[in-house]
């Protein structure tokens, strides 16, 4: 009843190929964007913006990138943290070494450098796959960790190895308050999400999916594995690099290589798995889940514990977060391997018929 598609006829191929062919979907997405851009800046508290929404936006971008690689192209990567670090430090170096460098250009440059590194560490994917590729990307992770600790030039010769950026501004508008930072990240995310959605619907996206499903058969019918795999690595690393630059500049402000260590890689991988492999929307669900869960548990568990007379400290909450993540990954893999995004799609499918039984 909500999703009545009666009367929505498409009279051109262009209309048929829209991202959101159903009018209700279009309205919903536009409403969501309107709320995100207009209502949230006024309604949300500073804390909500700074500590929840901004990391959500930034990590969604990273999850989007990783989803392209793992979900659409089927190449496992555990080096997300490394690519984020490359993006962050490259953007930092450009910003600090050249006076008056526009911020957006630095971020994009960070993404480009991450692309280079990503393609470099993606070359092994031409020979190996699955677990072996995961180990190869771990090599990237640890090597990049070490490089940013050891090679002084990358950190502008700071004695401690910790670097920071001062106040940010874009075309004269400063990006200082939480609202400005939020809108900045949101703008980036929207542009990149649109690009990603169109990429995966295009020829290159279909090549990626063919490589994921059956790479030998794909190469037999003429899809070049080198091109497909390396472009997946390139695009994915670009997204991840930009998200790394955003994380460093906008959220942390001052960081060290440990901010991009292997835990970060696992975090983003979990987002992609729980959110849904091979789904753009899934990246958002996964990011929201991974960010919200610790915060919700932090508030909820002590209350629950005091209801049963237990004094549950912060350490237990940390452990509980780990346990719930682990349990949920297993749960999703068993019940719905395609993650929360598939649950959402199934719900939407049901909504198309509701209230009719079949």
């Amino acid at each position: 009843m909500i999703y009545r598609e009666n009367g929505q006829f498409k009279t051109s191929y262009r209309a048929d190929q829209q991202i959101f062919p159903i009018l209700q979907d279009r309205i919903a997405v536009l409403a969501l964007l309107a709320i995100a851009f207009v209502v949230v800046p006024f309604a949300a508290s500073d804390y909500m913006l700074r500590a929840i929404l901004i990391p959500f936006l930034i990590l969604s971008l990273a999850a989007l990138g990783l989803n392209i690689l793992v979900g659409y192209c089927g190449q496992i990567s555990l080096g997300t943290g490394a690519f984020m670090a490359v993006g962050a430090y490259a953007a930092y170096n450009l910003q600090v070494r050249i006076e008056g460098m526009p911020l957006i250009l630095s971020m994009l440059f960070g993404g480009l450098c991450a692309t280079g590194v990503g393609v470099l560490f993606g070359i092994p994917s031409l020979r190996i796959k699955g677990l072996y590729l995961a180990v190869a990307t771990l090599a990237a992770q640890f090597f990049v960790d070490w490089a940013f600790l050891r090679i002084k030039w990358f950190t502008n010769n700071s004695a401690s190895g910790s670097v920071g950026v001062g106040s940010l501004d874009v075309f004269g508008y400063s990006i200082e308050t939480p609202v400005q930072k939020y809108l900045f990240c949101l703008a980036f995310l929207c542009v990149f999400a649109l690009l990603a959605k169109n990429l995966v619907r295009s020829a290159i996206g279909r090549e990626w999916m063919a490589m994921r499903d059956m790479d030998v058969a794909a190469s037999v019918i003429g899809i070049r594995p080198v091109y497909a795999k390396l472009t997946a690595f390139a695009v994915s690393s670009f997204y991840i690099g930009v998200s790394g630059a955003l994380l460093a500049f906008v959220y942390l402000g001052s960081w060290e290589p440990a901010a991009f260590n292997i835990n970060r890689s696992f975090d983003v991988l979990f987002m992609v798995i729980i959110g849904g492999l091979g789904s753009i929307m899934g990246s958002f669900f996964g990011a929201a889940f991974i960010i919200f869960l610790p915060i919700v548990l932090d508030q909820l568990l002590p209350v629950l514990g005091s209801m049963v007379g237990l004094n549950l400290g912060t350490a237990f909450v940390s452990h509980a977060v780990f346990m719930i993540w682990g349990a949920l990954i297993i749960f999703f893999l068993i019940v719905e391997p395609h993650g929360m995004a598939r649950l959402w799609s199934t719900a939407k499918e049901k909504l198309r018929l509701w209230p009719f039984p079949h």
Partner: protein
Amino acid sequence: MGFFLETVIGGLMTGMLYSLVALGFVLIFKASGVFNFAQGAMVLFAALAMARFAEWIPQWTGLEGKFLNNALAFVAAMVVMYLVAWLVERLVLGKLVNQDGITLLMATLGIAYFLDGFGQTIFGSDIYKIDVGMPKEPLFLFDKVFPGGVLVNEEDLVAAGIATALVIGLAAFFQYTGTGRALRAVADDHQAAQSIGIPLKRIWVIVWTVAGFVGLVAGVIWGSKLGVQFSLSLVALKALPLVILGGLTSVPGAIIGGLILGVGEKLAEVYLGPHMGGGIEIWFAYVLALVFLLIRPQGLFGEKIIDRV
């Protein structure tokens, strides 16, 4: 020259210890085709269980005598690992039969995180001691030949001895017992094994229990060396390039891969490290494995991967 020997011996010892952890990986992969990312967490969990039980058993039963306490704690930890194996088979593996490798890999990642949190909730986050009477002082051999002698770590020697005994025991188990033969059959071909009546579920529980046992031994040895704490599970990450190097399906590969990696790592850190500022140990193993993978993707002793379309 003496120092070079020291480094090589140190590397061999360390490699042996990594092999212990890698053995668990290989066992599980051989028998169930699952790459167990949770092996590190299992090592940690087993070591924590042993350390804490060794502390608690005297409190609960009032028994004295270190040997008795340690033996009881070992048995208790073994029971815990059996429970873990059984639960894993029931709740995870049994439900994910026939899924592809990536899914199973990620499921074991979930198990790893769960065991991490659960282990620390039950057993605590402090550094716990495992005292099985390992010698702590160093040995200096050949000090007539080399000035200052060649340093050999007694504890590492004992550990290497235990590891060798374990490998021989496992080899005998696989070769001469019925269960061992069943395991090998399952490793060869699941369906064929099932068709001749080998109960797959029970075999998986047995395999995970054996891997848990190997993990417990590894955990006791590592824990005795370093103290048992959360960060022990990071040691298992080092075992990943090891199994890649040696081949995922080969037990001798795990050993030899470990030895190569251990020696390579130590030599690189001691001789190459100072020129690169130090700290290269962390990625050297991975880069070595990576280079190796490009030349021989199945590892030294692994089976060639054949893809059917």
